[in-house]
Each structure stands twice: as structure tokens, then as C-alpha cells.
């Protein structure tokens, strides 16, 4: 039995300890907002926050998440919520599939740097592929969120 704390809720699950966190979240716990895109850590679709750091959940075994705080796209965080508003306001998503991972990466960025430069955005978002090519809007939505926060 492994106990996971996801979005503030505890889940006791009976899985092999080496099962990637991604599949435990999607198939066992049943939260499907976190996506599978590559399974080898190169696309970012599966990103979640693990004790506030962005991680590729396809790359870490579920056992490594035990005792830690996992936040997924379904979770609540101040920056995530503000970013989601900007995402909607700027019509960022096209097919939408990569966006949970993008939003988690952007949340981690704003949690760390309150006013990121373009370079800092690039660095934080480089691990997230968007096949639809919504990058420019993602960047704009991050900037917009920062602006709104500054204005209070």
C-alpha cells in the first residue's frame, strides 16, 4: 500500500512501487487531467507539482511521491487559478491536450519568480511541447498574469 497526497486528499493505493506516478494518478486514483504524451520525460504533458517543484510524473516512481504533496491540474493554487483565467481570456488552448502540463509548468515558474523575463519563461517552459503551436499565447498569458498580479 502506498499513500499519496494529491490536491490535499489522501489516497491509499495498492500498486507496484515502481509504477510511474503518472499512471497511478490517471488509472488508479482516476484524475485524468494529467496527460500522457511521451512517457520518456521529453514533452511535459504529465507535469505535476511535487512539493511545489514541477516534475514529469511519467519519470518518477509512485513510491518517490509518498509523503510528498502532489498538485495536479485539478488542484488549487493561487498562481494556477490566475493563470487559468489568463489562459481563458487569451484563448490559449487549441486542442487543449498539452495545456494541463503547460499550466503546471507556468505555475511553478510564477511560484518561484514573480516577474519572469522572456528568457526565464523560455527556460521554464522548454520542457513542454505544444504540437498545436500555442507557445506565443502561453507566453502572453504568463505576462498578463504577472501584470494582473502587480495591479493587485
Amino acid at each position, binding site marked *: 500500500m502506498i499513500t499519496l497526497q494529491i490536491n490535499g486528499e489522501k489516497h491509499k493505493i495498492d*500498486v*507496484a512501487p515502481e*509504477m*510511474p506516478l503518472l*499512471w497511478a494518478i*490517471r*488509472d*488508479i486514483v*482516476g*484524475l*485524468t*487531467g*494529467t*496527460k*500522457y*504524451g*511521451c*512517457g*520518456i520525460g*521529453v*514533452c511535459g*504533458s504529465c507535469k505535476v507539482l511535487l512539493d511545489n517543484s514541477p516534475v514529469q510524473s511519467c519519470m518518477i516512481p509512485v513510491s518517490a511521491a509518498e509523503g510528498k504533496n502532489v498538485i*495536479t*491540474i*485539478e488542484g488549487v493554487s493561487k498562481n494556477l487559478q490566475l493563470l*487559468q483565467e489568463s*489562459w*481563458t*481570456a487569451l*484563448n*490559449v*488552448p*487549441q*486542442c*487543449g*491536450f*498539452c*495545456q*494541463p502540463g503547460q*499550466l503546471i509548468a507556468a505555475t511553478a515558474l510564477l511560484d518561484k519568480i514573480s516577474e519572469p523575463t522572456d528568457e526565464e*519563461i*523560455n*527556460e521554464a*517552459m*522548454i520542457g*513542454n*511541447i*505544444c*504540437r*498545436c*503551436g*500555442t*507557445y*506565443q*499565447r*502561453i*507566453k502572453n498569458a504568463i505576462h498578463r498574469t504577472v501584470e494582473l498580479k502587480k495591479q493587485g
Partner: protein
Amino acid sequence: MNPIKNISRRTFVKSVGLASGGLILACNTSVFSDKEKDENKDLTNFNPNLFVQLNSDGSLILIASRSEMGNGVRTSLTSVIADEMDADWTKVIVQQAVGDAKYGDQNTDGSRSVRYLYEPMRKMGAMARAMLISAAAQTWKVPVTECTAENHFVLHSSGKKIAYGDLVEIAKNLEVPTEITYKNPKDFKYIGKKLRGVDTEEYSNGSAIFGLDKRLPNMKFAAMQRCPVTFGTVKSFDKTAALKVAGVIDVIEILRIAKPFGTLGGIAVIASNTWAAFKGKDALKIEWDLGDNASYDSEKYMKQITENVHKQGKVGKDVGNVNKAFKNAHKIVESTYQLPHLAHAPMEVPNAVAWVQGDSCEVWAPTQDPQSARKEVADYLETPEDKVTINVTFLGGGFGRKSKPDYVVEAVAISKAINAPVQIVWTREDDIKHGYYHTVSSQYLKASLDKQGNVTGWLNRFALPSIASTFSPGVDYPAGFEISSAANVPFDIKNMKVEVGQSPAYVRIGWLRSVINIPHGFSQNVFADELAVAAGKDPLEFRLNLIGKDRIEETEDPIKYNTARLKNVLKLATKNANWGKPLPEGHAYGLSVHYSFYSYVASVVEISMAFNKVKVHNVYTVIDCGQTVNKDTIKAQMEGAAIFGMSLAFYGKITAKNGAIEQSNYSDYKMIRMNEIPKVHVEIVESTEIPTGVGEPGVPVIAPAIVNAIFKLTGKRYYNLPLSDYGLV
């Protein structure tokens, strides 16, 4: 017969997925379309395929028959009805239709959804508005001429008003009006405006249900190992190790179905979760009969088709006398261009949930073409189509891959075999290695210039495995539709010849976003740039001259192309980019213009190079796609197309050795990422012409514009893609 009817009191509304109640209008869109199948044209029976329902609580439900895959179609189409109807955008609910011929053509391909449905949508909206106005006039006992509609209310000249929802009970008993007036386009509130996508929130909070997210009680998960070589088959397999993986339930063989959209076949591992299925799949030991395609070596193949375009081919078009033009030439220019296979690689891998129960089957799948999925499933199960329900989920990208329902058939085959609901999930590796690849091509172009630098003769000889080979195995020359986009170049050249060379297929060839326009758009635009250099002219001036005087070109297509519109987008793109004005040191422009899916697109790109690496700074794209429906969707599609075009220009390359695809994932089939993006500036031409394609035509212009810019900057011409092969990215 009126193609639109009030069906509020008819019993069949349930069968189209609407609850009864409210005012329901139905329309037979085939009356408007130039392409729907003939059986739908039988107007003696009313076969509606488009539905809109207004309920007494004011909610407005619209059934979307086309798939949403990032193209914004659910938003665009809905906005047309809502606008004509003077409805409140926040009251609109979009419901996704299952796959059924009763909805008309549902294939979300070829960039035509908006084109076919624009007029019927407007008409329905206008009718609903007229009916609500007469319902209000009846209630108030005033003439209709004293009433107007605004934002979900009918207003009377005296100042009183009544909500749409409150008029439903009366309106539903009215006949549809025979005469309607459309809104003046200048009064449009939604059409042609920036509009928030109807699904944006679900996409941003993780609640949107893609195919991969569908869950059923007791659902199993499956993964499948397919033969590395296309159409190879299983000789024998050992499932012992796979069955030992915790969570694996069963291992079964799925036979290949030798149809265009049939499964490739292989060994399926069924498990209690996706990861166990993947692990079980890795543990399989399979001996394959590799079959005829095992000899495929894409590098050798490129050499072979290149030889084929360097000798006489089959004639596809012959106008004037090219040989004479070449003989009398002041200058001859000739070049050969080679482009590799590409894979769609949509962010969401192919997947589907199926549940076969007796002779019935229900499917949940991200599909661009639910009707074709339904047909394949019914054929497979040997059951009538009405026993098969195809529910369309959100699509995590399609780009043409998800109009081919082989993965749906796989889910059905497995569900039938194990007698339980099952979700098949392709790994990313499966997706890259077993796709329907964009063709690989070699193209030889030759042209003659006179003393003034005018093009007097043009020969285009190309070879590429045809999409037709997927449907008729053995086809080994490009098909008519692949020739026409080379033959219908909008250039004013007296002597023109198109020839095709032999090019058999060794993998499944399929259409990928903008299809044949990728190779043709590339060769035509790079070659035109070379000709401009040979003629000693500015590429813009040369190109305008090459397109020639304003004219409407007669083709067999229902929509004619207009060279004035083509020149216009080119002029606007260069104007937006400040073409001809000095750029920062070390920067250069390249331009490109292409007509596809009846739309006109030009792009100018600005690049620089540092340490021999290309950096794209700006892309100025202009599109003329007729009357616009949702400007922001079009803009987003152009932005996305620039990135899609850059990905293929920089990295796109699928190769085969011994019949097997060499790439495996986004690690070796790379995509543009955030740090590489340019600023994309989009202008959309204002127009009242018929709405034309938006999803695809922004792609083909990007790669040639980049190559032209590199030449401008370095004097080096690159003929092949991707640029990563030259170490340029």
C-alpha cells in the same frame, strides 16, 4: 421544399440526442453543399442533419457534427447561429454529435467545416429570430414590424421586452417563415469577431475529456505490439513473460485487416492499467514474418525516386511547348528538391474505448471522422451500422491522423475477444513507428528565362508515393489530386509541363495537415526565388510579375481562384514586414505565397544566424479565406501553422531502414519548443467571399520562406529538408 423545419413537436428529436421540449429547428444542409452524397439530396424526404434547440430557461443547444481538435470548429459554427439569432453567447451550449450519417458529412478534414455549414447556420439563426419575433408580436398583439431582437430578448418600440426563453412555448407552434431577412454583416456581433472558445475553460482546468480520459466501469487497458515492418505478420509469440507482469490479464493475437483503415494486427496485452499493458507489451517475445516491405530503405529510396525525376516521366499536364521554350532560353535554371516522410505526432496518441455487447458496440474515440469509424466497426463486427454508436470525445490534436480509424477497430477487436470494455492506448513509440506517413518526395524543376527575366517555360517533374496507394495497393505513381496542385500553379507561363515519376509505397501513406501542398508549396516557392535571383530581380517584384495580370483561373473546382487575391496577400505580407526597408545587421527576409484549400496565404519570415544556426524572429502571415467567422480562431490557426511549418522545416524527418521506422518519440522526432518561437503577426483579409480553409493553408508557406531567407543572408541555397540535416538548427 424548405430545408429547415420546426420539429419541436416531432418524436424523433430524441434520436438525435436532444431532450424533447423547447423550440427545435432542424435543417438539411445537403441543400446548401456542393459535395454531400447524393442520397442526401433526395429532398422528398426530410432528412435533417443540423439541429438547434432553444429551451424555456433560455439555454440554446446546438449539436456540433464536426470534431474539435484545436481547430475551433465548435466555437466557429456555433457563433454563426448565435449571431443571426441575436442570441446571448453565454447561453450557448454545444453538444457533440455521435457518428451518424444523419448529421451529414462529419469528416473534419480538408479545412472545409465552416465552408459547408456557414450558409445553413446563418439561415437557421435568422429563422429562429424571425419566429421569436412573431411569437412576441402575438403575445403583445402588435405588428412584427414594431419588434426587434437583441441579445436573447425581443424588444418592442414602446420599450417593453421579453426574454427568448419566455417565447419558446408560442414559437414552437409556429411554422418556419418562408421569407427571412439576414442581418447586415456590419451588425455582426460574433461572426468575424474575436470570440472566446466554448471549451477553453475545460481545457484549462483538466476537466475536458479526451479519448484517453474516457473511463467505464470494469474497463480494461490494452497495448499492442505491431510488426516493425508495415504489413508484416506474427509467426509465433511467447506470452509467458508478459503474463508475469503484475496487472496483466491476458495476451491475444489480433489479425491484420487488410483494408485502408483496418488494424495492422499484432499482439495485444490486456491489463488492469495502462502501465501494466505497456510493460507487458515490452515483455512479449514475438517472431515476425516481416513481409515484402522489409527491403524499404528510405535513403536508397530517395536516390531511386530522384533518378526517376531526372528522366522522362508520365505526362500530367502539357501546355504550349516547353522544349521549344527551353531551346530558345536566355537562361536555364534547374533544381531538385527532396523532402522526407513526416509523422502527425498529435499530442494525444491514437486511442479508443470500445465495448462490444452481443451484436452491438459502443465506442468513445478521438476521431476526425466518426462515420468512417462507424462503418469500419460495423464491417468488422458484421453487424448493421445502427448497432454501432461512435461517441466523439475531444481530440488532443488530429492533423489528419485521427481521420483514419484503425485504432478504433483495434479497440473493438480486443473488446470482442475479451468480452469487456477496453481502452487501447498507443504508446508514443507506436504512434511514430506505425503511422500513416506524409509522403516522401523528390521534385525536379526546370525553367527558362528570356532576356528581360520573364519565365518562358516551366517543367515540374516529381515522384512521391501516393495517398492512393493506401486505398489501392500497388498504385506507384502520384494520383490526379497530387498532380493538380503542381499543375494549377497560379503563374502566368505560356509553356508548362508536369510529369510524374514512378514511386511505389512501402509504408502506409496518409494525409497530414496541408497534405501535398507541403512538397509543392516548397518546391514552387524556393524555385521561384531562385529564378528571381537568376533574373536579377527582387523576389517580390519577380513573384508579382510571375503571377501575372489579375484573372480568375478556370479549374474544375467549384471555387475558382483569383490571382488578384493571391497578389493581394503577398503585397500585404510584405508591407506588414516592411519589405525592402533595411533590417538589423545580420537579419534577412524570405517570402513565400501559396494557394490551398481555396485560401490565399503569404508569409514573410525574418531570420538571423549565429554560429551557423538559424533563428526565426518574425513571421508575417496574411490569409484571405473569404468571409471570416471567428477571427481569433483564424489567427490562432495561423500562429499554430507557423510553428507546425517550422517544426517540419527544422526537424521533420521520418526514415526507414530494413522496413522499420528509425524514429521513436519526440526525442528523435523533434518539435519546435518555446525558446525557438518567432513572433507571428497575422493579418486576415476582410472579405465577403465564401469562407474557405483555415486549418491547413498556413503550413506550406513557412519552410520555403525560411529557406529563401537563409539564401538571402548567406548566399547558400538549401534544397532539402529538414534543416537539422545541415546542422543549421
